[in-house]
């Protein structure tokens, strides 16, 4: 696929003609995945036949709990290995490529449970994000050949902290940040490497409504800079608000694709979220089925529950 242009609007307008079907081919995909299968024992967590992610657009990955979204994220970024499958970034195959090398290619992710480096200051967290640092080699670090580069990195880091409204906390330990601020720091840190594709795993989880608005603005600004964004999210308002394209996963498979409005009225999506019998009269066995499903959902939620977010969630 030729990468003609990355002007902000091109990614979105190009999606207008794409059919609203699972696995639909995109005019200019940055990521292509084929037959990616990940099993945990008897459970098939991910079984994606074909999916493409458009360059220069914001793509949302949604689906009910346990749909395999985060696992798919981990597979794409090299943090987990599938049993089979092929996937590529910018046409370069990524199977068996370790996570750090995926990041160096320009595909940087954030985590559902934020991973800030608690005992490093914000500015040190940011500096760590820069790639190709001479001082990160053993001899380079020892001999101090990194001063000039460090000054450039610091300048860039300060500008990003300013943009993400964290500049006044510059020298504080990252461990003192609230949950929402951690999300901001992680996103800012990811940008230190100038990634082509930013992968955000639940950027809104545990973030208060005021901060949510600013985070939304930041995600949109990534696209306006010509970057591609793929994010996992449960917050449907956010998905509707900022995404150009939505991919819906359920039980490990891609079940629907399309622009946000059409996807959310898609019968397959409603079925995936609510079960396929949700609009039928409640006969006795249906009631029983719903109770069972509810019990499963509670289990899944409990398994998904994140101790960090319950403590930090509402502080920001």
């Amino acid at each position, binding site marked *: 696929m030729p990468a003609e242009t990355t002007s902000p609007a091109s990614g979105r307008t190009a999606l207008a003609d794409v059919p609203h079907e699972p696995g639909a081919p995109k005019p200019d995909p940055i990521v292509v995945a084929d037959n990616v299968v990940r099993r945990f024992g008897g459970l098939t967590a991910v079984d994606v036949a074909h999916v493409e992610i458009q360059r220069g657009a914001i793509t949302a990955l949604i689906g009910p709990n346990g749909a395999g979204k985060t696992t798919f994220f981990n597979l794409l*970024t090299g*943090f987990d290995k599938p049993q089979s499958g092929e996937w590529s970034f910018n046409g370069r195959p990524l199977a068996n490529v*370790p*996570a*750090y*090398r995926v*990041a*160096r290619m320009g595909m*940087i*992710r*954030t*985590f559902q449970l934020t*991973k*800030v*480096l*608690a*005992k*490093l200051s914000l500015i*040190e967290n940011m*500096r*760590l*994000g820069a*790639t190709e*640092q*001479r*001082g*990160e*080699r*053993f001899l*380079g*670090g*020892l001999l*101090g050949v*990194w001063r000039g580069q*460090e000054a450039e990195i610091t300048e860039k880091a300060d500008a990003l902290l300013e943009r993400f409204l964290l500049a006044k906390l510059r020298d504080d*330990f990252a*461990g*003192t940040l609230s949950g929402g601020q951690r999300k901001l720091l992680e996103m800012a*840190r*990811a940008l*230190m*490497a100038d990634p082509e594709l930013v992968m955000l795993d639940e950027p809104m989880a545990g973030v208060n409504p005021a901060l949510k608005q600013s985070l939304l603005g930041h995600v949109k600004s990534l696209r306006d800079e010509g970057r591609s964004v793929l994010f996992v999210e449960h917050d449907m308002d956010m998905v509707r608000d900022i995404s150009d394209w939505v991919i819906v996963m359920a039980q490990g498979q891609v079940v629907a694709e399309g622009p946000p409005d059409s996807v959310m009225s898609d019968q397959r999506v409603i079925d995936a979220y609510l079960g396929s019998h949700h609009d039928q009269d409640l006969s006795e066995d249906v009631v029983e089925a719903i109770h069972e499903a509810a019990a499963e959902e509670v289990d899944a939620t409990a398994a998904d529950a994140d101790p960090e977010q319950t*403590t930090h969630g509402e502080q920001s």
Partner: protein
Amino acid sequence: MDWGSVFSQALQSGLGPTAVVYALAAIGLNVNFGYTGLLNFGEAGFMAIGGYFMAAFITTWGLPFWLAIAAGLFFTVILALLLGIPTLRLRADYLAIVTIAASEIIRFTLGSVTLLDWFGGQDGLIHFATPFANANPFHATIDLGIVSWRPYDFWVLFLGWIVVAVGCVFVWLLMRSPWGRVMKGIREDEDAVRSLGKNVYLFKMQSLIIGGLFGAVAGFFVALQHQNMNPTWVATDTTFFAYTVLLLGGAARVLGPVVGSIIFWFLIQFLDVMFGQMTSGSDPIMPTWLMDTDQASLMRLIIMGLALMLLMIYRPQGIFGDRKELAIDAR
């Protein structure tokens, strides 16, 4: 009760060759555990490889002193690679188990009858320190008033503290650099560092090698200090003492291990001599029904253990640590 001699003997121990050895071992552990978060419980194994290979290359295989030092360092790197390749991809606690097991394997192997001709079995190796002793520029007893050392001991500790100082500068230069930043990042969360494009495995390997090399240098000094290398110098409690030294001084602080070692060996000797004097003589200060001379020799370890517990409860950051930094974990 002669407080003058208690104090002078304690100070002699706190500045003596043993304190040098533990300062070096703790600097190694500081690189591993303090900065990179690697739970290396096999520092004694690195000391064994360093000390034994230096000694054996001189006594058994007749190499010159400097080549023997180089050989000791070389085999330490080999050990670090052997330990690191299978374990550094695993979780931190696996490394702890593997390293403690490896250090025991090394100790038993080096002391075994099978390798008697090379490493001297349980008696170990002697006579290797002659070239080192011949180079000693000090010929008279060094008497600084309150403390005094025999010329050979002073030669060991004089060189030892120079090496410790060089080691501290080395660690300081590394840890303020971007390289050190990656190490600290790995300690905090290695997946985050990986997601930013750093080859975490390679960095952890470098940390293990550098920590091991400090262990090997500590091993050289153990061997030179006693002019004898045998398995008892490198038992597992050596590693635990080195960890105590590190935590006492404060982990992830350049001077933590040095100050920790001085204080540790000062206190150990202080308590030992004090209880020794309290229970000795025809009319001891300590009533004999409470404690006799045999029990007195154990008191130092009991009290050190108690002190370590109190330290962990009331000053877990050690002497140089920053309490605020530690409090972050509690959130």
